């Protein structure tokens, strides 16, 4: 049984952002989990073909994609801290930095897509590439939506629409962006590295 002193010193547990965003994140994670497991099961059926197809992917590009997303996530998280300290100008700049970092991801990914397409390794080439295009393409669409959200939040910061007391919308937007990171850290080893 807790004493009153223990109750007083216990930290207050708080879920950042809107509860609806968390349910949305859980739904998105469930869809991605099904796709990732489908990829892993298909790899089990034909591991040699998967290992051979993976040779067409450059893991150093995968690493660069990862670092650009993670850096963008850091800038977005730091922006939330600035809003909490009532420094919306800095928060807006950090969100623009997050947007810029995510642009690196988009350029690298489009370059990779173009390279694979030029080699004839499209959606119908084999099972590996069917799943590669579906899985990474679905994630890419989430990145694009996240970038729109980052831009929207940067504009809201410029208009000083948030305050240290009222910034739940920004927390939710940034949580969505971290979910995109979270999915990628599982996708990256499975698609690019794990034979």
């Amino acid at each position, binding site marked *: 049984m807790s004493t009153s002193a223990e109750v007083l010193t216990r930290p207050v547990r708080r879920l*950042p952002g809107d509860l609806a965003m968390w349910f949305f994140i859980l739904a998105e994670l469930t869809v991605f989990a099904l796709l990732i497991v489908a990829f*892993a099961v298909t790899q089990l059926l034909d591991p040699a073909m998967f290992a051979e197809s993976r040779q067409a992917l450059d893991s150093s590009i995968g690493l660069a994609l990862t670092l650009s997303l993670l850096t963008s*996530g850091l800038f977005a*998280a730091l922006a939330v801290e600035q809003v909490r300290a009532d420094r919306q100008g800095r928060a807006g700049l950090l969100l623009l930095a997050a947007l810029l970092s995510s642009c690196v991801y988009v350029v690298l990914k489009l370059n990779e897509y173009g390279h694979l397409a030029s080699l004839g390794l499209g959606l119908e080439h084999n099972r590996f590439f069917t799943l590669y295009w579906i899985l990474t393409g679905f994630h890419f669409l989430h990145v694009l939506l996240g970038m729109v959200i980052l831009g929207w939040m940067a504009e809201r910061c410029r208009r000083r629409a948030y305050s240290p007391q009222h910034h739940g919308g920004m927390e939710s937007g940034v949580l969505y962006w971290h979910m995109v990171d979270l999915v990628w*850290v599982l996708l990256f*080893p499975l698609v690019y590295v794990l*034979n």
Partner: protein
Amino acid sequence: MSASKVLVGCWLGLALLSITTVLLGSAGSTLLLGGTILLVALGKAWLITEGFMELRHAPRLWRLLLLAWPLLIALIVILLMLRGN
């Protein structure tokens, strides 16, 4: 430690673990290496949920739910790898 320092620390950890993933991947394709790569991915997921998403301050149920997601996927992939061997 300030919240910003925690975030930068998480990013550093994530960057180092990402480089580790590529190095492990280029070292070969044994079951042990595969399991280690998945463990590294779990560590990265934990840094994102607890650090970036601030779930370290959240109710336990939500922390468990978000940690269960990468754990479940990693377990399924490891089981499939064992079956493949």
